[in-house]
């Protein structure tokens, strides 16, 4: 049975390498997926993933005893992604929603991804950043609304509104488009 977040936090405070390995194994794919879909570039997401876990290692002895490691990591990753996106060209593109794949796929991923998966990535990529991060944390990563609100630094009510708007935009984006009917020639 994998250790709980509280057990991980206790062991990390003692700088136990096996606790770090457990946290790295449990959260690496989730944090990476979140980062790729936030910044829209795998190479940038890899750098931000590295920085996230380096910060965990540096901060380990000062973690609170009841730290939620998952929420802590998502908070750091989200702040790093946001800092990265302050670069004007990227920020403008992603705040508005790029309309491109949120996560550009490698040929291997491409083969593995279903058609539906690709459509979902596309729809996610069209969401404004503030809505996308809320949807990613709750719907994709399975954080509780309270945890996600803490990660985003918003009230639960504000999170609920973001989720509701995100859901509506996603449903719009995924709705099959009606083909325009041709007008008959007189």
């Amino acid at each position, binding site marked *: 049975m994998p250790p709980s977040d509280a057990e991980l936090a206790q062991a990390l405070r*003692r*700088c136990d*390498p096996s606790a*770090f*390995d457990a946290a*790295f194994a449990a959260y*690496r*794919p989730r944090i*990476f*997926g979140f980062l*790729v879909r936030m910044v829209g570039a795998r190479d940038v997401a*890899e750098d931000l*993933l*590295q920085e996230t*876990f*380096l910060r*965990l*290692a*540096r*901060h*380990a*002895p*000062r973690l609170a005893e009841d730290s939620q490691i998952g929420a802590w990591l998502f908070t750091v990753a989200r702040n790093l992604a946001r800092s990265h996106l302050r670069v004007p060209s990227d920020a403008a593109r992603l705040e508005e929603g790029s309309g491109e794949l949120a*996560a550009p*796929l490698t040929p291997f*991923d491409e083969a*593995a*991804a*279903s058609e*539906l*998966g690709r459509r*979902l*990535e596309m729809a*996610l990529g069209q969401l404004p950043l503030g809505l996308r991060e809320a*949807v990613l944390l*709750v*719907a*994709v990563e*399975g954080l509780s609304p309270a945890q996600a609100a803490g990660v985003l630094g918003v009230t639960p009510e504000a999170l609920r509104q973001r*989720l509701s708007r995100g*859901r509506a935009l*996603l*449903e719009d984006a*995924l*709705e099959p488009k009606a083909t325009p009917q041709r007008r008959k020639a007189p």
Partner: protein
Amino acid sequence: VNDRDVFDVLHRELPALDVDDLRSRRIRGLALVELARAGRANEGRLSARAARAWRRTELWWVGALAVGYLVWAAEATLRLYR
């Protein structure tokens, strides 16, 4: 998608992403070095804190020891004359 909740669909259908093995090992290696450094720095911080606490309270401890010794000596002397 239409008759299923869109968040449920996202959760089930989005492809899982991960870094390649080489990069993963590199990040882990760098982080373990940082973790060991943080552990050493923390031990240093703890011993520095203990040294500071000792410096701040040293006079009180020595004073308390001296007073205790004087009380004991006075009691022992008085006991001889009772």
